[in-house]
C-alpha cells in the first residue's frame, strides 16, 4: 500500500467515526419549537450525514485504487522501495522528535500562562523553543545567553505594551505582588 493510500484510508475512517459521533451527540441538542424553524439539531445531523457519505466514498475509492495498483506494485523493485522508506524514516525521525518537543513546549506554555504568569512562562517557552529550533547542533554558553536576553526583552516589552498602551494587563501569576 502506498503512503497516499494509507493517508486516505486513515482520513476516511477517522471522519466516518467523527461523523457518527456527531450524529449521536446531536441527539442531546434540545429542541425548541419556533414557527417554521428547523431546530438546532437539523444542520449538524445533515452535515454529519454528508460527511459519513463522503467518508464512505473516499474509503471505497481508496480500496479500488489499492486493488488496481497492486499488480503494478508487485512488479516494482521491493529493494528500492525499502531503501527509500528507511531513508525517509531516518530523516523524518529527528523531525518528528522536534515537532513533538515543540508541541509539548507549546502545551506547557499554555498551561503555565495563567498560574505562572505571562512574563515567566514566555521566557521559559522562548528559550526552550529557540533551543529546539536552532540550526546548530552545539549550544554554546554565548548562544544561550543571547536567547535568554531576547526572551526576557520580548516578554517584558510585550507585557509593558499591553499594560501601558492597551491598558490590558496580562496574567502576572507568580510575579503578582497582591497574592
Amino acid at each position, binding site marked *: 500500500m502506498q503512503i*497516499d493510500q494509507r*493517508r486516505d484510508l*486513515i*482520513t476516511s475512517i477517522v*471522519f466516518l467515526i*467523527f*461523523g457518527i459521533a*456527531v450524529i449521536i451527540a*446531536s441527539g442531546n*441538542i*434540545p429542541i425548541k419549537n*419556533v*414557527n*417554521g*424553524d*428547523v*431546530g*438546532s439539531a437539523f*444542520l*449538524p445531523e445533515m*452535515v454529519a450525514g*454528508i*460527511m459519513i457519505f*463522503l*467518508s464512505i466514498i*473516499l474509503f471505497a*475509492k481508496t480500496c*479500488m*485504487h489499492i486493488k*488496481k495498483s497492486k499488480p503494478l506494485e508487485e512488479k516494482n523493485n521491493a529493494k528500492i522501495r525499502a531503501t527509500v522508506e528507511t531513508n525517509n524514516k531516518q*530523516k523524518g525521525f*529527528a*523531525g*518528528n*522528535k*522536534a*515537532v513533538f*518537543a*515543540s*508541541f509539548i513546549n*507549546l*502545551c506547557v*506554555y*499554555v498551561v503555565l*500562562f*495563567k498560574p505562572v504568569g505571562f512574563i515567566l512562562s*514566555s521566557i521559559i*517557552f*522562548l528559550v526552550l*523553543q*529557540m533551543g*529546539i*529550533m*536552532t*540550526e546548530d547542533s552545539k549550544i554554546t554558553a554565548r548562544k544561550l545567553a543571547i536567547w535568554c536576553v*531576547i526572551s526576557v526583552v520580548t*516578554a517584558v516589552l510585550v507585557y509593558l505594551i*499591553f499594560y501601558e498602551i*492597551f491598558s*490590558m494587563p496580562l496574567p502576572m501569576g507568580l510575579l503578582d505582588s497582591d497574592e
Partner: protein
Amino acid sequence: MDEILTMFNGATLLLILLGSIVGIVFGAIPGLNATMAVALCLPFTYGMDSVNGVSLLLALYLGGISGGLISAVLLRIPGTPGSLATVWDGGKMAENGEPGRALGIGITYSFIGNIFGILCMALIAPQLANFASRFGPCEYFALIFFALTLISSLSEGDMVKALISGCAGLIVSMVGVAPMDNARRFTFDIPDLNGGFALISMMIGFFAITEVLDSVKDKQVKGYQKVKFAMRGLGFTLREFIDQLGNMFRAAFVGLGIGILPGIGATAANILAYVTCKSTSKHPERFGTGSIDGIIASETSNNACCGGTLIPLIALGIPGDAVTAIVLGGLMIHGIVPGPEMFVTNGALINDMIIACIIASILIFALQFFAIHFFVKMLYLPKSILLSVVACLCIVGAYANNNRIFDIYAVLLFGALGFAFRRLKIPTAPFMLAFILENYCETYLRRGLATYGSIDQFFTRPISAAFIIVGVVSMLYRIYKNYKKNRGNLAV
C-alpha cells in the same frame, strides 16, 4: 477643492499618518487586528473635532486591513483574518524566493482595492446601499450557500477530501450556543464552549502553530533556505497588470459586494473573492502555487471591502462589522447620526471622510512600500528566534482578543488539527471557509424559515433563487469534471 484644502491642515494629516502607522502595526501582528486598533484609539477621539476624530479612526481601519499582508507573506501567518487567503499565494511566492515581489504586489493591489472601495463609496453609496437593503435573510442565506458550494473548487487534488474538510469546518463552527433558539450544541457542559471557538484561535492555530511545527520538521529534514530579495519596480510588469485586470475587478467587486452587505465582513470577502477568482480564472491551477493571481484576488478584495462596509454605515446608518460599529460610535459621540439624512445635514463631513480615506490609502501605500526592504530583512533573522517570538506573540494575541485562557487552548487544538490535516494531505482552506461562513449560513437560513414559515421563499425570490441555482449547478459541474478526471486517471 476647498474641502481638500481645509483637510490639509497639519493636525489632521498627522493624525491620519499616525493612524495609518498604528493600523499597519496592528494589522501586521497576528492576533492584533483593525477592530482592536480602532477600539483602543476611540477614547482619544473624544476630545478632537469630528473631522480629526473620524479621520484617525478611518486611517486605523484601512491600515489595519492593509497591514495583514506583511506577515501573511513573510511568515505565512495572516496578520489579520482579512488577509487569510494572501498566505496561499503570497506566502508561497516568498517561499519560492521572491518575498519582495509578493509584498510589492500585495501592497499595490491593497491600495487599488482601497481606492476602488472609496470611489464607489463616494460616487454611488446611496444606490449601493439601496441594493443592499433589498437583501433579506433568504438572499443572505443564498449568497452564503453559494459561497459554500465554492468549497469544491478549493481542493488541491482530491475533491472528496476537500468536501470532508469543509464538513468538518461546519461542524466545529457549530460548537456553542446555536442561533435563533440559543440551544447549546456539543458543549458537553463545559461553560467555555458556550461561546464556541474564536475565529482568531482557529486562524492562529491553523497558520502560526502549524507553521512553527512544520518548519521544525523541515529544518531537520531539509535545512533552512536563504532568502534573497527579489523585486523590481512595484513587483509586476505592465503586461502582468493588463493581464490581471479581469482578475482584479472580479476581486474588487466581490470585496465591495460583501462589504456593502452588513454583517459579513472582510474575512469572508477575502476568502470568497479568492475562491471566486480561482473558479472563474482561465488558469485555476496557478492559484496556490505562489502566483500573482492569488495575491491580487486576496489583497484587492479585502481592501475593497473596507470601502464597501462604510457604504451602509453612511447611507443607512447600519454598521457592517465590528470596526464600523465602533466608527459609528465615534460619529455619534460628535453628534453625527449617519443615515440618508446625513447627505443633507452633514454632506461636508462625508466629503471629509472620503478625502481622509484617500489620503490614508496613499500614506499606507507609501509607508509600506518604502518599508519593504526593512520587512524582508526580518527574514534574515534566524528562523529559530523569529518563529519562537512570533509564536509567543500569537498566543498573547489570541488571549488578548477576548481575555480568555480557553482561546489559547483552542489555538493548540487547531494547531494540532492543522498539522494532522497537512500530514494527511487534507486541504485546510475548505475547513477555514466553512468555519467562517457556518454561523451566517445557519442564522440566515433559520431566520428566513422563521420569518416566512416555509422554504418556498428561498426559491421564489429572484436574487435568492439565482444564487442557489448558480451554486448548485456550478458545484455539480465541478463534481462531474472531477469524476471524469478521476475515471481517466484510473483507466491510465
